[in-house]
């Protein structure tokens, strides 16, 4: 802990303008550069995509970053199988979205629905939910430990700043987050948006060769 204390002292000095030379000296002693050279893609991975092991509705164990996100276009949402509220319209929307996106889902585009109730939503429950909605390959319903699912929920920003609202799982956040991991393009849209509009917004993060030449004004 002495090391921590010394750093505290250095930091105190650093905050005072006159101490800049002292700080430089201290850093030289530690012989490490002031800032690290880390790619922005790597920082995004570190900030948002902990490589936790999740279980899909088909029983596979998959790593969040390595297996699910890396090198892919992805779409995230939160749900739970017994949800009576916003899940139903969103899942219906995503079924239509999967139809619109066709065979690209499972090739380079992947859809992930994370359960908010991992204790209830075991593989069997998720499989039943997927079959009930006639979900096709490339769209996974994911569960894991309570702790890991909570981490992912927070990392992806599915948290209401009002703790009371946040506790009410039945009224959870209905936003889709989407992105192109290698291109570092990320966005979000309401899960209740029209499926063709969701597909349109996804096209904005698509690989350059697939991007529409002109989408001005929606183009439909």
């Amino acid at each position, binding site marked *: 802990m002495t090391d*921590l204390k010394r*750093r*505290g002292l*250095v*930091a105190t000095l*650093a*905050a*005072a*303008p006159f101490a*800049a030379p002292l700080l430089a000296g201290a850093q030289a002693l530690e012989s490490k550069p*002031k*800032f690290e050279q*880390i790619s*922005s*893609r790597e*920082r*995004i991975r570190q*900030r*948002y995509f902990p490589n936790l092991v999740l279980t899909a509705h088909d029983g596979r164990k998959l790593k969040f970053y390595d297996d699910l996100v890396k090198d892919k276009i992805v779409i995230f949402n939160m749900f739970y199988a017994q949800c009576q509220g916003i899940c139903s319209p969103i899942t219906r929307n995503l079924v239509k979205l999967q139809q619109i996106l066709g065979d690209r889902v499972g090739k380079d585009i992947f859809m992930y629905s994370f359960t908010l109730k991992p204790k209830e939503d075991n593989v069997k429950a998720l499989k039943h939910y997927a079959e009930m909605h006639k979900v096709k390959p490339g769209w996974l319903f994911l569960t894991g430990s*309570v*702790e*890991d699912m*909570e*981490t992912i929920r*927070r*990392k992806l*920003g599915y*948290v*209401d*700043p*009002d*703790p009371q609202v*946040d506790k009410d799982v039945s*009224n*959870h*956040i*209905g*936003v889709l987050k989407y992105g192109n991991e290698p*291109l*570092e*393009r*990320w*966005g*979000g*849209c*309401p899960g*209740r*948006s*029209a499926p*063709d*509009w969701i597909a*349109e917004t996804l096209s*904005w*993060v698509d690989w350059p060769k697939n991007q529409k030449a*002109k*989408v*001005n*004004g*929606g183009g*439909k």
Partner: protein
Amino acid sequence: MAYISKRNLRKEKEKQIAADNRRELIAAGFKRRDLLKMGLLTSAGMLIPKKGLSARPLNTRGAFDDDEPNSPPTTPFQELMPRLPVLQPVPSLNPAPTADPQPLLGEARTERHQAFQLFPPQRFYEMTQQEGTVLMAPAGELPPQTIWGFNGTTPGPLIVERYGVLGRPQDGSVLLRLRNNLPSTNGGFGLPSVTTHLHNGHTPLESDGFPCFFMERGQFYDHHYPNVYAGVLSTHQAQGGDIREAMHTLWYHDHRIDHTAENTYKGLAGAYILFNERDTGNENTGFRLPSFGDGQNPLTSFDIYMVFNDKVFDDRTGLLKFDLFNTDGILGDKFLVNGKINPVLHVSPRRYRFRWLNTGPSRFYQMFILGPNNTTKSFWQISNDGNLLERPVQVTSSRFSVAERVDVIVDFTNDAGKTFYLENRLEQHDGRGPTGDVLGAGQGDKILKIVVDGPQVADNSVNPANIPAGVYFYGFPDTNEAPRITRTFRFERGNGEWQVNGQLVGGCDRPPRFQIKRNSVEKWIFQNNSGGWQHPIHMHFEEFQTLSINGNAPAATGLITKGRKDVFRLEHNMEAVVYFRFRDFIGRIPLHCHNVVHEDHAMMVLGEINDVGDNRTNP
């Protein structure tokens, strides 16, 4: 030590210790299990709210450390505040601009310029949206930052233009060609697809920067800015428009649907000034407001545009950081003025006009001028959102949310040798909006240091203290004409999404949710039923006047809400009635929240001005 308040010093210190401690724990190879055992991690995977681990442990986003503002420390008040460079016109454009779009030559515009023949452009400007490298902090404290800017700078160049004169309204007409030369790689955030809004010009709507009228890399877009007063083709045709609708302090910024927050945060915003024969830019003529000069020379330029924004820098890389998955609003812990963190401005002992603009993304300011010994210096507010009030009003502070502008006159005549700070005392902890509490003198965030050590120079500007009673500027247009329709817009949150009247933004290709009849009057009611959230509500193209706020007349003193505006600061549990005249031009138009994070998450209504109109009272 005198430069930094105790509160700021403590904050900086805690941040530094927390960052280093976190790094140390990770470097030491502690696993989650170890941290749990040590009692430093909750079962939900959060760092225990403990001083020295997370600088803002009890934040509202669930005590998660990574995306709270924890920028590396920087030394405030070392660097000079840049004055915005003035954009110069170019003699011609290639290809020559035309009323019709030129898609075969790479133009993204799809609609014909509706007023190109009426107000043919007299001057041409050209800017390129491109990557640039800038220093935001004193050299060595933060690495060079890669930004996206107009001509590679942020804020972009200042455009200084002038309205036409009686009989020749077209004299003010200009054409701005914007080229998208942004890279395909973004360094972590930003969408290289853009549309630029001139906030809040009386601009034909195909040139206004509608969120869906975006251009891709390699394309260009011609914006025709006639710079005419509202009424020019309708109620005040003979007068060349209603001069009482003059706007003087504007700005331009990216408005890409769903991606405005990251693109403006990355730098795509700049400033725009309009003068006329009354607000002349010369303190010897017209209203005799402090001279603009060339905008650069400190001995002749006393009209200074200040662009405020707050940003976060990654504690490990020192690079600009944007919270990709935040849908509530983003706060920075570093305050920039004209692109520099906490700069210094040297002034002479005389009067100045400051033009204050807050480009967000989500913070509200209440700006005070802090003097020696925690005194508060009063000043004169002369405008709201770039629109002159009836006369200067003496105030001790001005409040402005995202996109609002305030022009003020500060009189340093008797202050030679003194030092002041622009201080934001409005308490705000997260993107939801300010708490409503105003901190004490010296307890807020010092944004800019102002040192009155410049040479004595002549001051021929009007002394607001000596202006006789009554209207000094234009006065306000009347609000007596009966509205064709009254519409209600309720701004609310549902399932973590932002809604207006219970609806989401929809899509660019959907029919307009409201249709305004050209040359008609409408009364709008803005409602916020929440005690948790505030929203800066912005309407394009026309300025409104507030008729009432929670049943009371708008304030003419203090936090001034009277006057023409284009952003309504919709605070907690507030209902306001505003009055619009929609004149002259037609086209597609958005109404939206200007907390740009809310805006990107569907808090927008897409409408249209046409010659039919509709009767939807709750669009």
